[in-house]
């Protein structure tokens, strides 16, 4: 059994990577569940990529990448809401426009600067094996913030994930809570990109939450399952990176996606059996 634990006890960098990855998993479990239920994957994707120019600029100016990412995310979210309000274009189109715009800006900044000391690979894939203790504190802070917002706004969020009208008739302002949900996504992306990168954070946001949505009906159960899946993916992914010599961030996210595939496959088998049994029940009743 030592091969399951020893890599982590012997190596501080792996321990810190595990902590970081678990924090990302918990953050993403909360936010990701709303993202999956409300169909915000595209916004999540757009935000995850839209922060690249901000991070690149921040690195150029020598300030924290988190700050740059926050500014970028704010610009994106404001842009999306302005375009959707002022034109007849759908939210989808607005998001797409800003997404590609920001991404293109990011590519230009990282490619043309003579002094660019950061590396686009590090922004996209993160440095999970180089996580600092200060990064962990940031992530913990973000987790607490997201947890508090989610607890307070749980009811409107759940109602909105069923139907906006339902939330409205219950007296909740849909635009406000929608924006609040986007803020959650933004905070999650910003807190996670340093460890798993902007490209892979989306995987952690969606894959465990999708698994949760697949097997549970209650939103809180979904979140719990998502958290469990995310933590498992973190641990198994890092273990795979250690034993099979794989890129760390990539193998964590791939594990999360594989767990979803396995869950979906098992579920479809179980559901088929269940459906098979239904006629029998009918016979018994009559």
């Amino acid at each position: 059994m030592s091969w399951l634990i020893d890599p982590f006890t012997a190596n501080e960098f792996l321990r810190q990577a595990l902590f970081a990855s678990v924090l990302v998993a918990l953050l993403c479990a909360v936010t990701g569940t709303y993202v999956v239920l409300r169909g915000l994957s595209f916004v999540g994707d757009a935000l995850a990529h839209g922060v690249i120019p901000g991070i690149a600029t921040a690195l150029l100016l020598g300030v924290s990448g988190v700050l740059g990412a926050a500014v970028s995310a704010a610009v994106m979210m404001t842009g999306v809401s302005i375009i959707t309000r002022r034109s007849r274009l759908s939210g989808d189109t607005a998001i797409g426009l800003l997404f590609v715009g920001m991404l293109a800006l990011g590519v230009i900044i990282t490619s043309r600067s003579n002094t660019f000391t950061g590396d686009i690979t590090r922004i996209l894939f993160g440095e999970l094996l180089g996580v600092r203790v200060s990064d962990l504190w940031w992530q913990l802070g973000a987790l607490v913030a997201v947890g508090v917002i989610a607890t307070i706004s749980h009811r409107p969020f759940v109602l909105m994930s069923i139907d906006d009208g339902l939330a409205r008739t219950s007296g909740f302002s849909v635009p406000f809570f929608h924006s609040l949900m986007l803020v959650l996504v933004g905070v999650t992306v910003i807190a996670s990109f340093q460890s798993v990168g902007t490209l892979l954070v989306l995987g952690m946001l969606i894959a465990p939450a999708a698994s949760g949505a697949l097997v549970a009906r209650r939103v809180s159960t979904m979140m719990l399952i998502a958290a469990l899946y995310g933590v498992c993916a973190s641990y198994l992914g890092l273990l795979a990176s250690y034993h099979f010599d794989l890129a760390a961030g990539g193998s964590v996210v791939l594990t999360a996606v594989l767990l979803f595939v396995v869950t979906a496959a098992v579920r479809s088998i179980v559901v088929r059996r269940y459906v098979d049994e239904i006629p029998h029940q009918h016979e018994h009743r009559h």
Partner: protein
Amino acid sequence: MTPHTWPSWRRRSIGALATLTLAAVGLSCADSEPTSQPTTTLSPPETTLAPIVDLPDVVVTTSVLGAVVSDLVDGVADVVVIIPDGQDPHDFAPSARDLERLNDAAFIVANGLNLEVGLDAILRQVAERDGTVFFVGEHITVRTMNESDDDHDHAHADDDTDDHADDHSHDHDGIDPHLWLSPAAMLEMLPDLAEALATTFDVSLDDAATRVSSSLTTLDRRIAGAVSALPACTLVTGHDELGYFADRYGCTIIGAVLPSLSTTAEASAKQLVALKKVIAEHRVAVIFTSLGTPQAVAEQIARETGTTVVELSTHVMRDAVSYAEFMLALTERIVDALS
């Protein structure tokens, strides 16, 4: 003392016209001052006025090769560098203007060996069309890396420093493109380059070639002298970049933060554990990083192994104004860190 032979490769920050003027000024200053005598102190640029001559362009992909080439084509051609100094050549993407420059160039010098991945397609196209591309990699003894046969990636690197090329192994095999890190490799390709340039521009470069050759030989000796003064030259690097240097000067590379010939890779936990083991076994005190090294990962490993991180300038000229100065600065930094 310090010659300013080739400010033209910094053209991106200056306008095209200004560059032309600067290049002319720089070249005229350099006429009397070969770059064979590098100094560590930089004097302010001299402002001697010189007639603006419209010289043809030699387009060079990287700034370090640009420095070598500009030593050779003094007064014959201007050197234009495509990949801005400070950018990682491993993941550089050209702009439309870069493509135009490459298409219009009378002569192109490229590193080759898959270094400039982003320029590969255009270079091949130009080479097929009229053959003015000089791939340095085709004119030197290419260094290859062997695939490791077991799981202990760098563990069986022996401590004998004489025999280096093959006794360390990495998990990524392939052709090593970092040829500019050995003046010997530059010496090797020099006659071919001089001949090709002389043919293209229809001039004699014999004198220039002799001068550059002797300055490279001096440089080679100086580096060898500096490195041989070390009790042992055992290196842990950012990615696998110092192979040519190590082979030439009797150093042993026992590991890398990113054991890959390119920087576009992500570290794996297994590699890092192997690296920690090797660092402990060989009592290494320094991890050398450079452009494209995952800095946070290097620092974490340094913290765990009680080593220090020293940044090297292996892909960029930074403050160096000549190839010799670039190589000596690199050597000095390595020697200082190891002694």
